[in-house]
């Protein structure tokens, strides 16, 4: 699980990255690209929010304690962008970490915009 091949793209701003993946924002297309689990997938606003909901909803603790299921594969399906992730438990944890960091950075970006460019005099 190594972040791959995306640095060369010109219009991308890195929002957040971890050892396992990265999220880039494309201002021109008003969307995000997530580089994770060996592929680069484009998400618009609705799609990103849906991904966030699906990942945050996964009960990681329950999956850890459940030893009845042998292959730890949880399917995460995001219908907004006809895209599917098939992830194991470690990948779910990694993607959640990536998204948490991403949303902190996006919130920070909003604060910066509020403070610097949305000042009404």
């Amino acid at each position, binding site marked *: 699980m190594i972040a791959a091949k995306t640095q060369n793209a010109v219009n991308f701003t890195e929002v957040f990255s971890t050892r396992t993946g990265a999220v880039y924002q494309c201002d021109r297309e008003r*969307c995000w690209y997530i580089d994770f689990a060996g592929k680069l997938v484009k998400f618009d606003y609705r799609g990103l929010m849906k991904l966030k909901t699906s990942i945050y909803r996964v009960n990681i603790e329950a999956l850890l304690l459940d030893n009845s299921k042998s292959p730890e594969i949880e399917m995460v399906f995001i219908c907004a962008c006809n895209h599917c992730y098939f992830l194991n438990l470690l990948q779910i944890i990694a993607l959640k970490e990536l998204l948490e960091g991403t*949303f902190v950075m996006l919130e920070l*970006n909003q604060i910066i915009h509020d403070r610097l460019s949305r000042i009404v005099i």
Partner: protein
Amino acid sequence: MKDIMRIKSLLSTDIEALLNQQIKKEAHSSALYLAMASWCNQNGFDYSSDYFSKQSDEERYHQLKLFKYVLDMGGSAISPEVSGIKHDYTSLREVFEDALEQEVAITQSFKNIAANCMKEQDFVTFEFLNWFMKEQREEEYKARRALELFEVIGEEGTGLWEIDKHVNKIKYDSEAAE
């Protein structure tokens, strides 16, 4: 880097989640009041049954008002699942006690949303909530007054019949109501 999040929606994730929870609570209230209307009707309390039917409609209206607000502000409104509606009561008094309890819980819930709006300075949603704050004054008043009928009139003899007849006449029209 553009602030795409803010361009798309006025609501923060937290406030949007709280509003969606409130949508669910209003739907739950609506279903609860309908169950109360059913119990009252089956036990011969026709006026109380009408009263709760109307309450149920009002809660549905509250639900839709919140629903529209979330959508208007660019958020995603969620149509809630409602389950676990109580249908069995042992007395008319118990029905009205539950109704007041429900309204108190709803008021608390709105106070909590307002506190969160204050915290993150979402004065737009805060102002929107004012309508509901005022509505809760009326809702609690009516529920409390209804329950007081059990003390004022008393349940003995034709008491319950009297109480039932009076329930529909409760109005919130004091000077403070305007």
